[in-house]
């Protein structure tokens, strides 16, 4: 048997070496924390206001003007129109077939091609791609912008009136959403110390806050898109927009550690 082997693996039946008992060895000096100033101090993270050049926000006129904002996070493009599109309600179309039966504007947008979903909300139209890459985002944005402008000029209803008439009252939507949160979502994210709070319902738009471990979590967008949206839309299909009002970069969230006073600048 090789010498190194016997040092690592004792032969069968050999006595195990005695286990040391008694007091623990003394702590090294560097590990002893006797500085009272090293107490943990909670830090508040302040978000500054972001200043935007005035010329970027000005220039609206009597013509229908539309600006496209490309999101580099969620593969979506938000079209900001200078007038209300759907007053008081929001409307979400998950696919072309649904759009054809409910929203002529969404159907016209789907006809451009490469569209995955359409959300109409107040003065915005949010379009996600279907991943086919039919158009670049810039090309698609110009085509969709032209479709929205032409449609609004036509004066046709963007959503069929009978569809809007069937949207339940806010109280009923809030009750059903709260049930989904209590019975499905919060138990599911409790292991991550997360908690979802329903703030309010306006029309059929749902406003939530992601708290606990969800606040500031890098995976919160995935939780929102793949978990919360899906659960809400499955159980309450009349829901339109779902807006997260959480300030994910502020407060004592998981990424911001409490630092000892001596470590602060």
């Amino acid at each position, binding site marked *: 048997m090789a010498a190194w082997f016997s040092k690592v693996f004792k032969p069968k039946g050999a006595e195990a070496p005695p286990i040391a008992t008694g007091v623990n060895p003394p702590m090294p000096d560097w590990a002893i924390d006797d500085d009272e100033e090293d107490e943990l101090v909670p*830090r508040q*993270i302040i978000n500054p206001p972001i*200043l935007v050049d005035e010329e970027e926000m000005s220039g609206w006129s009597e013509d229908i003007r539309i600006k496209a904002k*490309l999101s580099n996070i969620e593969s979506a493009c938000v079209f900001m129109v200078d007038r209300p599109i759907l007053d008081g309600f929001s409307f979400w179309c998950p696919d072309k077939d649904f759009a054809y039966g409910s929203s002529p504007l969404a159907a016209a947008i789907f006809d451009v091609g490469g569209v995955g979903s359409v959300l109409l909300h107040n003065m915005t139209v949010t379009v996600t791609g279907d991943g086919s890459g039919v158009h670049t985002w810039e090309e698609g944005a110009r085509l969709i912008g032209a479709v929205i402008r032409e449609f609004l000029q036509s004066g046709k209803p963007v959503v069929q009136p009978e569809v809007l008439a069937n949207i339940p009252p806010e109280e009923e939507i809030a009750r059903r959403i709260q049930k989904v949160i209590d019975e499905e979502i919060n138990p599911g994210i409790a292991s991550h110390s997360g908690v979802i709070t329903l703030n309010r319902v306006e029309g059929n738009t749902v406003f939530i806050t992601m708290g606990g471990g969800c606040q500031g979590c890098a995976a919160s967008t995935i939780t929102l898109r793949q978990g919360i949206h899906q659960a809400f839309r499955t159980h309450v299909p009349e829901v339109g927009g779902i807006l997260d009002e959480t300030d994910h*970069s502020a407060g004592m969230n998981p990424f911001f*550690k409490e630092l000892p006073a001596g470590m602060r600048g």
Partner: protein
Amino acid sequence: MPRLETFSLTIKTGTQGRKDIPKYSINGFPLDFDEIEGEAEPGKVLKVTGHPESFPHTLTLSGPDEGIWEIEEVNAEYFCSNEPSYKIRMGAVTLDDHSDLNIWQERPPEVFEV
């Protein structure tokens, strides 16, 4: 999330400043700025540059150890890997010994008329 190689801040202090030079923290780790010009005394302008060379889950500017620091405006420029730099203007904030400033701002979405 892009990898942040370098960022620079131009900080204009208001009527209440600080004598020391602030640190910055990336993902909770405090670091000194690599390049420093000017000061954070009242009415003065401080220009600092950091080279974190990391992925900024958080990026904060430390508040003063005592007193308050009135910041009038912060002009930030971010240099990330494999993409052009971009600038962000931040407005007035006041920091104290229990607060830090969030200085990580994602590239603003491209906006154009269609």
